[in-house]
């Protein structure tokens, strides 16, 4: 089942390449058909899977829809057997993100009306990115995960670079270089882990992520073994490895100060690609931190929780202040993403059930909301090719439906009750607030500053609303723009309505997400607290 979800887009992509040129509607139809099938399958998995009976994180029983096959198996001299599996499965952390991905992909396709040239390339690349993203969420073999993770970069590079705005070359290569810089070092850690971990059954070295999470599988005296482990530059190698992998994913999230690729990439990318970047690629960073950093290096998660929390808080405030200062609507939305993803880091660092569950909820919530926000920006931009905030005023009078959706989405994003972001940010803040008394991971003032971030969020969203939509109608482009700025089309209306309903549904029934994610998040938390503490004791004994 998972393989179908992952590789269906690849087939569709090849099919599109085979269809004769200049058949744009056909390409789009193929892509949409595939995505609808993906949504159906992911939805089926999401609602029928048994995600609540969770055991240890490293127990394969905890994972659903397992598909496992030998892929690369080599005898490599004294390196032993190189054992790489095709191993995909889901748990409560990845299942919501998988469903999110499928839905967002459909929205991205609907939003690609602004693509005017080389449709064939565009749709096949977008489907390729689709495959890589789905694969990343499903993979439970580090090698496979890395493959999908890296494979994602190429199509996104071309999507930004070939269909983007004026500074697209710069934005595309910056995005690529940043991410690759993080991931080549992650490759080294991955190889090191491989040498440290053995499969308990076969005794061969393995890339199996679940085996890597279990401290019992680490070889005596290996690079990343906690017990009597090794030192690098006087620090435990494990903690350095945690930092390396964390940086690789923090670039993707993105965490201040590693965020500078994001405003460029998001602003220069065409609307559908901005949607994919904000709603999915950022989530992969957060997912990687949970699955790999926290799963494999729980000791690091505890040791650096203060710093992760601090950087999360800085991201919240810095992103919000930048959003406040942005003159470009898309740039404002991009910076608001940085601010909102800061909450995810804050929630993770608290290492409390509320915080981690809230952070997972924030991932889902922000996935839908950022997709909506970029879609809304795309609506204006596709009509007048302009999105400077100061160039618009009083849009409510000519685009009432559009304004209504903007209103809903802005209020949802700034964390008003009834909407998903409220639940997510509330839980994160509760977690951050109680952390000091429960486990002493992060101090209370971080929660306080985090809530200031919500206030700032309200400020930039409401101020933008006031400047662009209310007041007297005034458009920079005059009457010409006034004609062009038609209200939302029926297609756009359906998408926006659907997205708004999803946000409200999650806001009113948070159990839609929590029921699936809760037990996996709690099990991971348990894992971090128990095994991480044990390993930290071992590391400090060095």
């Amino acid at each position: 089942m998972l393989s179908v979800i992952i590789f269906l887009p690849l087939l569709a992509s090849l099919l599109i390449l085979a269809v004769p040129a200049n058949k744009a509607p056909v390409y789009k139809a193929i892509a949409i058909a595939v995505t609808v099938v993906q949504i159906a399958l992911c939805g089926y998995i999401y609602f029928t899977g048994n995600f609540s009976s969770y055991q240890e994180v490293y127990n394969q029983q905890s994972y659903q829809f397992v598909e496992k096959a030998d892929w690369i198996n080599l005898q490599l001299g004294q390196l032993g057997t190189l054992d790489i599996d095709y191993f995909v499965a889901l748990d409560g952390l990845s299942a919501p993100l998988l469903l999110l991905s499928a839905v967002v992909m459909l929205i991205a396709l609907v939003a690609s009306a602004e693509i005017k040239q080389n449709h064939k390339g565009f749709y096949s690349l977008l489907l390729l990115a689709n495959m890589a993203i789905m694969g990343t969420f499903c993979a439970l073999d580090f090698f496979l995960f890395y493959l999908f993770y890296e494979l994602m970069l190429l199509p996104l590079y071309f999507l930004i670079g070939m269909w983007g705005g004026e500074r697209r070359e710069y934005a595309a290569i910056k995005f690529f270089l940043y991410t690759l810089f993080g991931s080549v070092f992650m490759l080294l850690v991955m190889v090191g882990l491989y040498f440290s971990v053995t499969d308990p059954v076969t005794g061969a070295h393995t890339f199996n992520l679940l085996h890597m999470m279990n401290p019992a599988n680490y070889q005596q005296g290996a690079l990343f073994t906690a017990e009597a482990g090794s030192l690098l530059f006087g620090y435990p190698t494990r903690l350095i490895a945690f930092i390396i992998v964390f940086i690789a994913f923090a670039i993707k999230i993105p965490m201040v100060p590693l965020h500078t690729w994001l405003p460029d990439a998001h602003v220069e990318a065409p609307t559908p690609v901005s949607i994919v970047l904000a709603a999915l690629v950022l989530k992969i960073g957060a997912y990687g931190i949970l699955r790999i950093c926290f799963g494999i290096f729980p000791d690091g998660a505890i040791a650096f929780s203060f710093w992760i929390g601090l950087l999360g808080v800085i991201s919240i405030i810095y992103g919000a202040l930048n959003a406040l200062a942005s003159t470009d609507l898309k740039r404002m939305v991009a910076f608001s993403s940085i601010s909102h993803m800061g909450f995810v880091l804050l929630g993770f660092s608290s290492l409390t059930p509320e915080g981690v569950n809230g952070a997972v909820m924030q991932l889902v919530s922000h996935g839908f909301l950022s997709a909506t926000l970029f879609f809304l920006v795309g609506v204006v931009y596709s009509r007048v090719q302009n999105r400077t905030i100061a160039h618009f005023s009083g849009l409510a009078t000519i685009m009432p439906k559009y304004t209504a959706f903007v209103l809903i989405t802005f209020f949802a994003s700034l964390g008003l009750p009834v909407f998903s972001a409220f639940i997510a940010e509330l839980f994160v803040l509760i977690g951050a607030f109680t952390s000091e008394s429960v486990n002493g991971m992060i101090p209370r003032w971080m929660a306080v500053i985090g809530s200031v971030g919500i206030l700032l969020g309200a400020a930039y969203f409401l101020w933008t609303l006031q400047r662009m939509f209310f007041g007297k109608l005034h458009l920079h482009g005059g009457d010409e723009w006034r004609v062009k700025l038609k209200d939302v089309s029926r297609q756009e209306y359906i998408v926006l309505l659907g997205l708004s309903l999803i946000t409200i549904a999650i806001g009113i029934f948070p159990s839609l997400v929590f029921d699936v994610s809760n037990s996996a998040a709690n099990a991971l938390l348990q894992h971090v607290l128990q095994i991480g503490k044990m390993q930290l004791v071992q590391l400090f004994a060095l």
Partner: protein
Amino acid sequence: MENTLSTILQQNSDSLNYLLPEIILVITFLETIVADLFWKKKEITLFVTFFGLAIALLANVAQLGVTDKLLFNGMLQFTAVAVVYKLLSIAAALVALVVLLSEKSLLNTAKGIGEYCTLVLGLTIGCQFMCLATNLLSIYVAVEMVSLAAYLLVAYKSADKKATEGAIKYVLFGAVASAVLLYGISLVYGLTGTLLLIDSNFLANLSKAPLGLVAIALVFILGGIAFKLSVVPFHFWTPDVYQSSPISVVVLVSSVPKIAAFALLTSFLGIFSFQLSNGPLIWPHFPWQNVLAVLAILTLSIGNLSAIGQHNVKRLLAWSSIAHTGFMLLAVVAFSISGHIALLFYLLVYVVMNAGAFFAVLLLEKQYKATTIQDYSGLGAKAPLVAVMLVICLVSLIGLPVTAGFVAKFLVFSTVLDAYAINANPILLAALILGAVNTVISLFYYFKIVVFLFLKKQASTLEQVATVQLWEKGVLILLVLIIVLLGLLPSTLIAFISGIVNVKSAMILY
């Protein structure tokens, strides 16, 4: 063993059986001269060359799995690993000849193509002997044979002033390098009293010699080999020669001698290292690992950093090929069986992706007279197939999944990290970190080509002057297909290589 004349003769005639591929190549060498003299038709000469190389390739395949043997009283040593290197070098020569078929400017020179074929065969024969040589004299003769053929090949289109300049530089540097090599050999001979590397006295006597002198001698020999590999600081000739030579010559010179030089380097280093159960034991009187690691790091970094500023695509690829040599050298630095496996796999992948990239560049040059990166503006839209194939080759050269280049880089990183885990030599850690950084740097300049191909708007000045033929597209697609397939399913090939390397490496490392 009694050294009577009859036993020596007997040994020599036994040895000849092991040299079947080389004998075939020599016969082909003579045939091409005759064919060129009497028929003067380039089709016939080319056919003879192809046919001979293909037969030699098959003869090498037949030698796979044959047990090791010392030939001609220790002048040559037949090993299972050497067969792999020989196979690879002949295959690379064949690929270069296929590229030649597409390069009309070289194919139709006034000189004709007969001598060219002869030189290609001469080069290949020299490389075969480089793979087999274990006597310092036979090493020198083989290296010189390769060098002479390469000098002439580079200068083949001598009507061209730039080609002549590149060739002269190559000859001058080459002459110095071979003098240095010869001096190193004479020093080693003086210190050990034997030219035979596998002589048990060789290492024993070398261990007793003064350390400074030993270091000088070994560095000189290493320098001679490093020149063939274009390792920094013996690399100055490479960019000039690559830029000025015809592309088929570049494909040939950048792969075939490199394969042979690595064969020579590994068998030479094999004398100094032993495989124990808990890791390698390296001859302690010379810091092999550190010297090689420093060379590898320098080659890697200088190659990549210099490539950034290049505008001529061939020159850019020349610097990148230097960087790749650095990566392959890292595999050697690990001093392990898995390192040797990684090296062989990397070499094979390098041959394919290097040839693929240069072939695509040749096709673009033919079609649009595009030689600089700026000329490539908007060519992605005009020649989508060739451009996409070029991009895949470049992605593999960077080492991104799911290409063979990624697997190759992954194996190198693995072996070096494993070596580091065993002996905790900080220079290995530095090599790992710099290797990772260099991957990012290489992305930057390789993607400069991609930016111009696909992201820049079309340049109006470029007119299509020729069309790409179907077989040319087919060859390019085939090369790219190999790259992707080896990226997805490397198991069979690596298992095959490790089977051969493991058999040999029971005791001695290489």
